[in-house]
């Protein structure tokens, strides 16, 4: 394998990891507030579809990206209303949200399966992009890739360096205590859930506008579920979410190459590898019960209401 192939593989790895970075960071913030939203896959695919529709109808890629995020947030709002205001079970509601999202997108998206789209282009920064090696590795992605990494820094900074992040973590740790101190638990959780939805929507928009600029039914292919698993196995730490996402991207690209080489392994098995490898690695590096207990939001998944406590 020559340097050029290696660079191409690394670039492709990053590109494949982006949807997971978006979605998992969003879900991380949601779970840190104590809410478990299993609807990531559903929010992601609805985001992908609506972003694609806007792009196909108007050609405005920026607007399309924004609409993708809004569509995800709208789905999240439904989830928030049912679980936070009506206090329904979060697991059941999240599962239903995914089923709803997958079905809805398949239905509305029928007319768009054969539409061609000029996706979001990679940046061409004068001088930087044409640098040897570094130019390809660092300065040749589309803008959403940089946005994902910016989101990683922003979320980490928010959670561990700001007062608002401290409040969010406190709400996830003990909503009753936070309420007793005068914080508005339900409102904070709503905001977290909406942020998670918008990030899942962005992940979807990236898929249908940049990664593979087309619409296909079920095109998120379980990435929402992997994002959920990433958050848990990364023991709710943004750094490990990033590592897990890149690992997933890496194995995805590697197995494509193996398939391309014509190795006698069933392609279904190879397609399964990224999911399997990511989970196994994260389970192995996160076995420490103490670390889990220090980082896991203690109230995760439990409905909370002022009058109940």
């Amino acid at each position, binding site marked *: 394998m020559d340097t050029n192939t290696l660079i191409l593989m690394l670039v492709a790895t990053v590109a494949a990891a982006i949807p997971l970075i978006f979605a998992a960071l969003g879900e991380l913030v949601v779970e840190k507030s104590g809410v478990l939203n299993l609807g990531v896959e559903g929010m992601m695919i609805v985001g992908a579809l609506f972003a694609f529709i806007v792009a196909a109808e108007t050609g405005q890629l920026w607007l399309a990206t924004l609409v993708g995020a809004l569509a995800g947030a709208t789905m999240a709002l439904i989830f928030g209303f049912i679980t936070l205001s009506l206090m329904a079970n979060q697991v059941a509601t999240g599962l239903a949200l995914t089923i709803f999202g997958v079905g809805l997108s398949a239905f509305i998206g029928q007319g768009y399966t054969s539409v061609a789209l000029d996706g979001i282009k990679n940046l061409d920064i004068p001088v930087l992009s044409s640098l040897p090696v570094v130019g390809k590795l660092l300065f040749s992605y589309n803008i959403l890739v940089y946005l994902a990494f910016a989101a990683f820094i922003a979320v980490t900074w928010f959670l561990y360096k700001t*007062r608002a992040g*401290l*409040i969010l*973590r*406190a709400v996830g*740790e*003990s909503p*009753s*205590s*936070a*309420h*007793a*101190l*005068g*914080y508005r638990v339900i409102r904070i959780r709503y905001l977290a859930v909406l942020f998670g939805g918008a990030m899942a929507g962005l992940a979807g928009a990236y898929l249908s506008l940049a990664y593979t600029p087309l619409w296909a039914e079920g095109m998120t292919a379980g990435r929402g579920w992997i994002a959920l698993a990433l958050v848990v196995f990364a023991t709710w730490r943004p750094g490990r979410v990033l590592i897990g996402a890149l690992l997933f991207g890496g194995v995805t690209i590697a197995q494509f190459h193996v398939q391309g080489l014509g190795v006698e392994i069933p392609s279904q098995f190879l397609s399964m590898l990224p999911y399997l490898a990511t989970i196994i690695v994260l389970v192995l590096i996160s076995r420490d*019960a*103490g670390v889990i*207990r*220090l*980082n896991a939001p*203690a109230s995760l998944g439990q409905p909370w209401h002022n009058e109940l406590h």
Partner: protein
Amino acid sequence: MSLKDAPPRLELSGITKRYPSVIANQDIDLLVQPGEIHALLGENGAGKSTLMKIVYGVVKPDTGSIFWNGQAVQIRSPAQARTLGIGMVFQHFSLFDTLTVAQNIALALDQKQDMQALSARISEVSTRYGLPLEPDRLVHLLSVGERQRVEIVRCLLQEPQLLIMDEPTSVLTPQAVRKLFETLRRLAAEGCSILYISHKLDEIRELCDTATVLRGGKVTGTANPKIESSKSLAELMIGKELPAYNRTQQRQVGEPRLVINDLSRATDDPFGTSLEHIQLTVHAGEIIGIAGVSGNGQQELLYALSGEKPGISTEVLIKGQAAGGLDAAGRRDLGLRFVPEERLGRGAVPEMSLELNALLTGYANGLSKSGFTQYAKIREFSKACIERFNVKAAGPEAAAKSLSGGNVQKYIVGRELMLNPEVLVIAQPTWGVDVGAASFIRQTLLDLSNTGVAVLVISEELDELFEICDRIAVIAAGQLSTAKPVAETSIEEIGLLMGGMRTSPATEQRAI
């Protein structure tokens, strides 16, 4: 200091709060003067906590008015209460385990804080009031007493004019209680009023200037605790005379029934405590108490004794048989009965009826036959238990969670007692139980030991242990002290041991 002309710090007038099934507060009047330490006295369920939540803005009253320094106010939120100058230290601490001391305090302050400056202020206030704290430590690493200091310092940083303390001493060693009282007296001398909620009468008599007594959601009287006796205060509180204990002085102690033999258990839980070389023998007809501040290994010891976490077979001997490797059912077959601290969820299934909860531990004692449940017998058993142990319940069909804490406890204790125990291990027998039910349960344990049962009580209530036990040991940091006869020790000495001062190595004098 002349505060006579100032208006009352806090005045409540006609406060009423109704919940769907119960009136928590009915027409409550309360008057707290500046610099006064005012006790709010009452049994569990008397409405003390609801009233304090109203003052702190957590709960809104249905009717009634609140005057703060003479001005009528409506307290809509804890944030507003803090702005007025009201601070509250909660009974179950409202701290966040995975955050640091400084972060926990920052969360309670309303403005954005520079963490460095805040740490400096924490150190300053904590030294001024003799409440040492390290701002950068994670809260889950702190002892219960230290956690309470965090809560108090958190309030003090807001320079409160009224400090509400909800059952502050229930988790402290006697020495820590004394230090707390010094701090509180000092605060009061500086003009801060203190509302002190408790059901511990001797503490109230020692600390407070005035006491308002609540019963069933109503004020039943105001008293000067310095003049009243504990007995007269208790009678105001429960509305009837307190029964005296009936205890046989000369007790016959039989053969060893429960032997804990060099029991060590490492914990992998960062919030847990490892047990180190626990050594104890409980004889037939004897009550042994284990005192200690919670979180010093009690939970781990209970799991090891009940069989929920079996270990090496020789670590625990029941009636001379190696039982350390047996699970809970195996130990029950040997005659061990167990009453855990968590009544709902571990001692009983909350959603299930009382009769089905009897089946949980009674299946081997005739409540089931060849794998089939004997409903008639279960009902009979459950009815007998309710009657014999004075359980206030709608009947055997009532769900366990519909009972008050004291009544669930009476039922669970009764259930285990009716299953012919030879060894009884019981944790926090009267925690959260009202005075009447508590004295009933204590008397029941005394009677039980008179019939030759070996009883091991793990409790944080020292008074209780001194009332009923023959010998008392202390668990601190996972180590157990030698069990000493009650007559040869004192609350002082036990308190020192609870704080981690070791007097003698844990060797059992009356060992096997």
